[in-house]
């Protein structure tokens, strides 16, 4: 299904101004310098470019077709799915690495992907954008599609509360070109995200989209299974319009589901892209039935098809549905992306798999309670005995506030006999140990390992008494290790595991991939696929 892009770059014919060209050149030089030093530097080169020319991003992305993905959870995975589909269908695509989702990082990624004249080399781009950076990045990128995945509480000391984040997104979207040029894709099941499409009069927090009209498309999950009542910790229990308590026809997780307000009538709108049934789910994938409506056709003309998503857990079903929605919003045929969903792979610490000295290791990023709860649900359903490793840092990129671990439902797994041992690492390992004790994990299973070297030994060797272990005992050779970590633990540990398992560094992946490697193309963080 790989086909050649008819038009090859550059996609802009107007010359680059001297100022912008200088900024681009300096950016490339700084990055090359950092790479020589063995650093993955993404922010500093961009800062240098922005210092020289604040709007250089507009120049270096001019003429490109751009997807912007924002929201609390699922940005990286959704962007990865889109980039993979673009690459697999023979389109040139640039994707920013997940650490580079602020204006400086995004600028660097685009600037470094230009030719000698500072013109973009690729036609398509998928940009993962921090909610706070949306307002600066969107007016420069002129995206075709803006996708908002979901909104949960996240790093409260940094981003403030959920409503403030929503206001930032609300302020960021109108910066895009209105009308037919830009389509906004919203999570229909998230009452906060859905409110972005509300009319100004109905809003409690100011004019919506500042009077501009946007095409809106939605994605969501239908009533799949009977779920428990909405959790006490849900981030949106009261109507954003009138303050009454929402009622739900069904829940998927956290505050997502078929919500409606009994007072003012604000409710979930039936989405164009909807997962109507989960047909099968295991530790590596989910098979669902998805209803899609082609962008150019009437809403009545819908298709239902069976789709296998190559990633486990319910939240990845949302990510896949969001990606399909955005894909169609860009006017691309649904079949292309549906064909690549089975190839989806966990990228950059998100359900990513490693083979470390013959031992299966899966790394799951969990940096806020909603994401963590979903990861824990995945672990809850894990059938085989496994060893668990938990990592908690409180550095700037993580947020200094780690209290959220008490909002996540570790009780779900703590007394699971399938967990043979619980390794705990990170700057705040002591806090995590205490949380696990409270959750009900037997103290004898908990083992604090602060040094990374020792942790790695533990992961590889499975404890000192490896020789005497029987299958099913802690550290038995076939026993997988599941690692649940927050952001900076992930960065560091992933790098170590990557070296041990022979994967490439994320910045090395921008090199051209081999033809015909299938899913590999997207595992790259800057997946350039297919084209010469």
């Amino acid at each position, binding site marked *: 299904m790989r086909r050649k892009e008819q038009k090859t770059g550059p996609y802009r014919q107007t010359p680059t101004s001297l100022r912008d060209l200088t900024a681009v050149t300096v950016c490339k030089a700084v990055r090359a310098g950092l790479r020589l030093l063995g650093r993955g530097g993404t922010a500093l080169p961009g800062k240098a470019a922005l210092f020289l020319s604040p709007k250089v991003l507009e120049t270096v992305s001019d003429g490109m077709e751009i997807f912007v993905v924002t929201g609390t959870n699922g940005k990286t995975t959704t962007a990865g799915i889109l980039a993979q589909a673009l690459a697999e269908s023979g389109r040139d695509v640039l994707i920013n690495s997940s650490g580079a989702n*602020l204006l400086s990082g995004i600028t660097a990624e685009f600037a470094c992907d230009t030719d000698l004249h500072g013109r973009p080399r690729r036609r398509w781009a998928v940009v993962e954008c921090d909610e706070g950076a949306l307002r600066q990045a969107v007016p420069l990128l002129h995206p075709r599609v803006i996708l908002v995945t979901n909104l949960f509480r996240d790093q409260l000391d940094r981003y403030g509360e959920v409503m403030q984040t929503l206001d930032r997104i609300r302020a960021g979207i109108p910066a895009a070109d209105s009308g037919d040029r830009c389509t906004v894709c919203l999570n229909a099941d998230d009452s906060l995200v859905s409110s972005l499409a509300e009319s100004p009069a109905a809003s409690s927090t100011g004019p919506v989209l500042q009077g501009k009209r946007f095409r809106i498309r939605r994605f969501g999950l239908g009533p799949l299974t009977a779920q428990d009542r909405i959790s006490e910790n849900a981030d949106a229990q009261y109507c954003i319009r009138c303050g009454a308590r929402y009622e739900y026809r069904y829940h998927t997780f956290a505050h997502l589901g078929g919500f409606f307000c009994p007072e003012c009538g604000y409710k979930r709108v039936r989405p164009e892209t909807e997962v109507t049934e989960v047909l099968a789910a295991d530790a590596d994938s989910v098979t669902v039935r998805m209803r899609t409506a082609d962008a150019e056709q009437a809403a009545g003309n819908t298709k239902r098809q069976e789709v296998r998503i190559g990633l486990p857990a319910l939240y990845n079903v949302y990510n896949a549905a969001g990606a399909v929605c955005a894909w169609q919003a860009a006017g691309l045929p649904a079949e292309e992306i549906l064909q690549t969903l089975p190839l989806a792979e966990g990228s950059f610490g998100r359900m990513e798999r490693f083979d470390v000295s013959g031992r299966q290791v899966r790394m799951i990023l969990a940096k806020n309670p909603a994401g963590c709860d979903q990861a824990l649900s995945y672990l809850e359903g894990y059938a085989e005995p496994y060893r668990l490793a938990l990592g908690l840092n409180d550095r700037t990129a993580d947020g200094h506030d780690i209290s959220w671990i*008490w909002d996540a439902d570790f009780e779900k797994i703590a007394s699971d006999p399938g967990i043979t041992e619980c390794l705990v690492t990170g700057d705040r390992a002591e806090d995590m140990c205490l949380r696990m004790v409270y959750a009900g994990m037997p103290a004898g299973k908990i083992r604090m390992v602060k040094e990374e070297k020792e942790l790695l030994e533990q992961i590889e060797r499975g404890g000192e008494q490896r020789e005497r272990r029987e299958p099913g005992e802690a550290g038995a050779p076939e026993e997988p290790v599941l690692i649940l970590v927050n952001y900076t633990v992930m960065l560091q540990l992933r790098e170590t595991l990557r070296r041990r398992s022979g994967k490439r560094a994320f910045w090395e992946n921008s090199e051209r991939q081999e033809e015909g490697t299938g899913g590999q193309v997207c595992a790259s963080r800057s997946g350039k696929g297919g084209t010469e």
Partner: protein
Amino acid sequence: MKLRICHLYPDVLNLYGDRGNILCMRKRLEDRGIACEIMPLRIGETADLTRYDLFFIGGGQDFEQEVLLEDLRKGKKEELKAAVEDGRTFLCICGGYQMMGHYYETADGMRCPFLGAIDFHTVGARRRMIGNYAFSLSETSGGSTVVGFENHSGRTMLGPGVEPLGTVLRGYGNNGEDGTEGVRYHNVFGTYSHGPVLPKNPAFCDRILETALQRRYGEASLAPLAVPFEKAAHEAALAQVKLRRKPRRGRSSAWL
């Protein structure tokens, strides 16, 4: 023996892991063979508050606090004030703590009337006071050291003669100026400390439980419990706080 705990507004005042405090109180009671009943009281629900020995109020989002104030005005306000004067024990965190005062004044001068159960008020500031911090409890509250996490833009000013909960060792506390942290009034313990505060500070938790048991049963002596994990977490957090002269402020740049 049995202690009845009323968890006020768990549906809105549920930020920053404050429910960990409920888990902690329950665990430390049950480990000593004391029964514990926890009753969540949500918006719109009513209950006979005189049944309860201990009230817990956590922190919340601004948007949801408006919904809550309306519920307070519908009658709970007077009941809660009566419970305070009656010597019932309260643990109030951050937004829940501010709510016990007279009012909250926003940075642009808007006044939001609160319970007025204790003589203090809170004024919104531009700069948020965020970070790990530590304070030592006053003698009336046990004198131990508490480590926690503060995150508030409101600066709280205690009225004349009102006793603070403790003295700031590192961090901002009530307002970043006078070195006070929280409030202690009758049996009300008010603090800005998230974290959640109790699991890592078992001595503080026991002090609160003893206060409630004392009122109910006339005497209370809690047997000591082994706290290896609690101690490790407390000491690690304290060591980290001590490294800092001022709490770190949130920065949004991600340098790799």
